[in-house]
């Protein structure tokens, strides 16, 4: 027994192996490395299996509108358009609502009520997307046709975005369903970021004679601005990648239309619908190329979101300048 000296480091590799330490380290390392391996394989497979459209269409793939499996001509623009439009609609609805709710939970509500409401918000985030789709098909779509469409089309029908007939399904419907789906993410992250704003910021504003709302809106929210942006990016990444709920209510028509009531298509939806029936390598690989594009987009947004959120919460926990 070595009685003196540091416990670790002085022992030989074999004595550590006998204790089991080295074995445990190697075994857990193996499993940790699997995570890296799987992730690398994912990126590799997406890249390799989308080579054909890359060679044949190049960047034109993302700029042309034809999606014609019979003539083997593929352009992704209608899907990119649909994905972006639905996500923007979703954010326009969910950002004000989500930030408002987060302000209430972080600034106004007593801790017990705030925690209870947050618990419900967490449950809302756990609702599977196919359930949103189910409700979308049977409640939001009819509601769109009978209530929302007439209400917007009559007074604002001259605007291109509210023009034309409504079939119930379409960009707007998908945007509404997406909005409900991403609200929990905005609330949870924004609430946490707001809670990390130091107390003295609020007190200083109140001491200078501002009302409660002024201290919240002009001091606390700007302090947490970057983190709230992070929560919005996170929500956007979720909205872009969401598949089932959108597939069920967007109408699945590969067309670019100015009207929000028109049916459209999204990247995730076209993959979900056509992947199993894709005949021919170019068709299948075009769908995988769409998957790769979606992956890259969400990858960038998630990275940005993480940086913004970390920056803000650290700012709050550190000494304020």
């Amino acid at each position, binding site marked *: 027994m070595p009685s003196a000296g540091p416990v670790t480091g002085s022992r030989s590799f074999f004595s550590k192996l006998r204790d089991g330490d080295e074995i*445990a380290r190697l075994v857990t390392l193996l499993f940790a490395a699997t995570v890296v391996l799987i992730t690398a394989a994912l990126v590799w497979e997406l890249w390799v299996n989308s080579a054909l459209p890359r060679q044949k269409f190049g960047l034109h793939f993302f700029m042309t509108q034809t999606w014609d499996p019979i003539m083997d001509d593929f352009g992704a623009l209608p899907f990119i358009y649909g994905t972006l439009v639905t996500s923007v609609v979703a954010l326009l609805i969910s950002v004000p*609502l*989500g930030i408002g*709710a987060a302000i209430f939970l972080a600034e106004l509500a007593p801790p017990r009520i705030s925690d209870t409401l947050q618990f419900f918000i967490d449950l809302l985030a756990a609702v599977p997307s196919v359930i949103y789709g*189910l409700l979308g098909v049977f409640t939001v779509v009819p509601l769109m046709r009978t209530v929302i469409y007439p209400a917007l089309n009559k007074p604002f029908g001259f605007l291109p975005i509210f023009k034309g007939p409504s079939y119930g399904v379409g960009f707007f419907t998908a945007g509404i369903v997406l909005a409900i789906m991403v609200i929990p993410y905005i609330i949870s992250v924004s609430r946490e970021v707001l809670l990390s704003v130091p107390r003295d910021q609020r007190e200083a504003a109140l001491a200078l004679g501002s*009302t409660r709302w002024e201290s919240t809106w002009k001091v606390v929210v700007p302090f947490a601005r970057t983190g709230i942006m992070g929560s919005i990016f996170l929500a956007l990444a979720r909205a872009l990648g969401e598949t089932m709920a959108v597939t069920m209510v967007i109408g699945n028509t590969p067309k670019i239309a100015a009207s929000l009531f028109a049916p459209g298509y999204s990247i995730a939806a076209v993959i979900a619908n056509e992947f199993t029936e894709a005949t021919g390598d170019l068709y299948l690989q075009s769908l995988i190329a769409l998957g790769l594009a979606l992956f890259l987009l969400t990858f960038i947004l998630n990275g940005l979101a993480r940086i913004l959120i970390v920056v803000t919460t650290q700012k709050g926990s550190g000494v304020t300048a």
Partner: protein
Amino acid sequence: MGARLRWRRFVSNFMLTMTGVCAVVSVMALFLILGYLLFNGGTSINWDFFTKLPKPVGETGGGMANAIVGSGKILLLASLFGVPIGFLGGIYLAEFSGRGMASVVRYAADLLNGVPSIVIGIFAYSIVVLPFKHFSAFAGAFALGMMMIPITLRSTEEFLKSVPRMLREGAMALGASKWKTIATVIVPAAYRGILTAILLALARVAGETAPLLFTAFGNRYESHGFSQPTATLPVMIYTYAVSPYEDWHRQAWAAGLVLLGLVLMINILARTILSRGIAVPRS
């Protein structure tokens, strides 16, 4: 009191009330969803739903016994694949890692966590379905297991790291080797948090549909073993909801109620009972 101050007070009260309205509206969405599903699913659920196979297209009646069994099989297999990798990898991150490797693993896990589920489906298709040349429960479980890895990994790491130093030092002082300390002291001290996170991960993938569409595919009959196309509840809800048949819609509602009930039940159990006194991580 000046008019300006009154106006500022009014704005303050009004806006603060509006934030309350926002919170109520958001939370109400949950209860509307629940209520609607209870209303529509409750009236369409019956014993046949749990015990019978789907009837041929056009005939009414039948149930989703095969999808319930299929979902169970795939979730079991997914856990067997995803949990060990996440758990042991998490132990590596918390206890053994040097700086370089750990940040690579963490980065990979975060990346994996953000991948849209439909893209996971494409990957599982090209790596499991294509080589074996048919859809299978294996492929579906691979996809779902992959989605469980990052959550399990990061929460295992977090909870292990939150175990007080004194426990660790106490075990070391008694002469326990490092892995013995981990196995007998640290992991038991953190197990409730880790189990909570694993349950939440399971609840999350239980409702996933997109990665199963072209991995487990679907089946109108019972599938034996793990290498056949397998029906699952979420995929059944999707196909039934977009079908034109009235009776299928009814069954979609019933399946939706069962699925949502299951997912929320796991969530509530994990968050309230198991995690009493622990901060539950959000996915």
